[in-house]
């Protein structure tokens, strides 16, 4: 049985150049991100190329994904949040496609790299902070001072609010990363059971049916998790943006 962590190794394909002491390399991670971006682009451009009043299958997909994200933003951040629709839609589609591509055997799941999810999460975090101060000025700080709290407990509550605000990018990134990592490790371990039992001859083959069935069930679960985590990442982005648009509880 292979090392279950091996599938997350970054492989360098070729070097693009150097920035100071850092090497800029084209890796398998970059390759699958490029595939995802190309896939999303071609799919959405192709789907909306021949627009019809009665949408076909591809156009329905594009329209449904648009409406799905638009409804999510309107429900969580209000109509003012639609300003951020391109950003949230990009993040949702990017994470969704990376998650789904990662489920295909022998591919690389980019979202199981903490550096990718952390970059996305910190991007959201800084957009919230910068936009919040730019739009509301110092009133943005009201976010940390909930109204209707007795004065003697207010410092403690404010401290907790600040702490929970600062830990958002960590939980935002680790949630996606750890979900994908744990799912892929579980699949690898159960797939390894099938191979181990398969080498034991006829009795092993009969026994291997159980982990094989488990692997198939896990793949469908991972399919659910891939879509759900992309949705969770997008909805949390909306909820954090809502704090920047409407600070104060």
């Amino acid at each position, binding site marked *: 049985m292979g090392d279950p962590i091996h599938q997350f190794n970054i492989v360098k394909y070729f070097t693009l150049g150097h920035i100071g002491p850092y090497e800029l390399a084209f890796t398998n991670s970059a390759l699958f991100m490029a595939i995802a971006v190309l896939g999303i682009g071609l799919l959405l451009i192709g789907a909306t190329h021949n627009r019809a009043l009665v949408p076909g299958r591809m156009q329905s997909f594009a329209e449904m994904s648009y409406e799905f994200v638009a409804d999510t933003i309107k*429900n969580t951040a209000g109509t003012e949040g639609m300003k951020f629709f391109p950003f949230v839609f990009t993040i949702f589609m990017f994470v969704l496609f990376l998650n789904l591509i990662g489920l295909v055997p022998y591919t690389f799941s980019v979202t199981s790299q903490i550096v990718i999810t952390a970059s996305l999460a910190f991007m959201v975090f800084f957009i919230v902070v910068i936009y919040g101060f730019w739009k509301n000025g110092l009133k943005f700080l009201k976010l940390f001072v909930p109204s209707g709290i007795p004065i003697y407990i207010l410092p403690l509550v404010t401290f907790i609010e600040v702490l929970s605000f600062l830990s958002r990018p960590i*939980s935002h990134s680790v*949630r996606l990363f750890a979900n994908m990592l744990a799912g892929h490790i579980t699949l690898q371990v159960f797939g390894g059971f099938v191979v181990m039992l398969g080498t034991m001859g006829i009795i092993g083959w009969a026994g291997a049916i159980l982990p094989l069935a488990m692997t198939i069930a896990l793949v469908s679960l991972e399919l659910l998790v891939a879509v759900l985590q992309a949705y969770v990442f997008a909805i949390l982005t909306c909820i954090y943006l809502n704090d920047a648009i409407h600070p104060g509880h």
Partner: protein
Amino acid sequence: MDAAAAKLIGAGIACIGMGGAGIGVGVIFGQYLAAALRNPSAAQGQFGNLIFGFAVTEALGIFSLLIALLLLFAL
């Protein structure tokens, strides 16, 4: 006890934390289902809140899993 054995035991202990998150996620979905059966017309509007609560609860379980993975593979 040598360090390698302590790491494995520590990883096992860290995974206990996921049980708490499991209870939490079960409570969230159970309560949502109970409320949705009482008032099905209001259920769709609360789906976003359901997913938000699920995500926040699940994160805590994921943290303990992360500690276990760090103990096993990174440290």
